[in-house]
């Protein structure tokens, strides 16, 4: 039984499709990565799932519900929470207010789905405790990323979407975030991870889809990570050689 099921998806900006017939699925308790070079359509995919851009053709299903007719803000109620590229936090508001908003709307839109409360995400990100009253825009990039993940978790999603959570962060911070993703996987959260770095994706995901110019061009099945990462031709063809450091 899959949580997310996308078939033949076309979506884009101003009526011009960027995605051409994308199909992918995320199973329950599964962590799936989407990898691809810049401009391959990864973020467009996230925005279409979240309803920030219209679906031009095809279908996005969450469980047994088609998302097409559901307004973006109500998709939270269907069990999606996304950390968008660039995080899109409320920079002028305090960490506390950012989290409080997510907790309040999560409780309103998903009554009975309570998995995380502020205390629990506080345990996941211990630094939050001391920074609750800081304006989010004054935090470091890594801290902001953690607030963004905490905010998404407070929406109590069935599916957590993370769009490039490692971009622009110091290696040490990336490790911290990866550790949190690992813990979420253990807890049974279904995850869709958008990532450019193949090494990180391999570490955090059971399997992956490789995207190029708006299409899924390759699938990496469970257990095939090492084969893929050793295949220079594939790496160069799809990722421009940007495979990231081996780990």
């Amino acid at each position, binding site marked *: 039984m899959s949580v997310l099921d996308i078939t033949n998806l076309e979506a884009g900006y101003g009526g011009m499709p960027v995605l051409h017939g994308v199909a992918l699925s995320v199973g329950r308790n599964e962590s799936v990565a989407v990898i691809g070079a810049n401009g391959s359509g990864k973020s467009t995919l996230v925005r279409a799932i979240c309803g920030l851009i219209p679906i031009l053709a095809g279908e996005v299903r969450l469980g047994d519900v088609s998302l097409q007719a559901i307004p973006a803000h109500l998709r939270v109620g269907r069990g999606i929470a996304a950390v968008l590229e660039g995080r899109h936090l*409320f920079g002028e508001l305090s960490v506390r207010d950012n989290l409080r*908003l997510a907790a309040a709307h999560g409780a*309103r839109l998903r009554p009975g789905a309570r998995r995380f409360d502020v205390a629990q995400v506080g345990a996941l990100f211990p630094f939050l405790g001391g920074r609750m009253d800081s304006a989010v825009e004054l935090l470091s990039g890594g801290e902001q990323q953690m607030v963004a993940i905490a905010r998404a978790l407070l929406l109590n999603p069935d599916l957590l979407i993370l769009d490039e959570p490692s971009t622009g962060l110091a290696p040490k911070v990336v490790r911290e975030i990866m550790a949190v993703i690992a813990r979420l996987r253990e807890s049974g959260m279904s995850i869709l991870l958008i990532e450019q770095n193949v090494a990180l994706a391999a570490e955090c995901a059971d399997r992956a889809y490789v995207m190029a110019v708006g299409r899924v061009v390759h699938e990496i099945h469970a257990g095939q990570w090492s084969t893929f990462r050793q295949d220079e031709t594939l790496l160069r063809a799809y990722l421009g050689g940007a495979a990231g450091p081996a780990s």
Partner: protein
Amino acid sequence: MDLTLLLQSALAGLTNGFVYALIGLGLSVIFRGTRIINAMQGEFALIGGMASYVLLESLGVALPVAALGGAVLGGITGVLVEAVLVRPMRRRGASEESYLLLTLGVAFAISAAVLYFFGRDARLLPGIGGEASALFFDAAIRVHAIWLIVIASAVMALLWLFYHRTVVGLSMMAASVDEQGATTVGINVPLMRTLTFLLGGLVGGLAGVLVSPLITIHYEMGLLLTLKGFAAAILGGLANPFGAVVGGVTLGLVESGAVLYFASGYKDVVSMVILIVIMIVMPNGMLGRGARKGG
């Protein structure tokens, strides 16, 4: 300088200042929430004042109810303008300047409608405490003016609490800070914009109700109030609603101080000159950018 005269002018300035502050507050609430400069903020006051007058004089409703009715009608007007005019324009990708033109057009339309239906007569609402005045040392102040300051202050405090302590208020701020972030948290951003206009209209309507015992209600009152409120909001930094309060009171005090030195006809000249100077010297308002946090 005669101390009593100075005090008298300060009290008058304070009263006017709170009126400017209320208009500026409404303008700033709408700007903060929607990035629209609402050129019809003064018209909310005209509608609020006129509605209270009609409720009171023609329908015989009690003054507090009539006052409330005026404010509510201001709010309803705000919602209608947003839902019927602003929203379709936004859907078609209108630019920021076109909203200024829109609200300016609506302002003229409302002014003309009031002229058509109510004529050129100036009307006056009875104040709280009637015509009575209180003595403050040797200077006199209308009892109503004291109430105006008290009520306006209470509204400002309530608005602050609303924005900082309630989920709806925080959601409205969040929607204005980051529309997409707000949407992915489950906030209905278009609804927050409508609520923003509701709040702006309520505050504007209330300003009209409060000021109408002091200055007369007539069809041309809106534009001047908008200008003064705009000056107040700009002085305080347009994106910070509570800056408008500081700006409004400052503007009121400077204006009334100027009257001590210049003929009173030059009052508006003085306030507009200050506006221009402030915009050149301090483009982020008197409080600067730092004070905008969470405002």
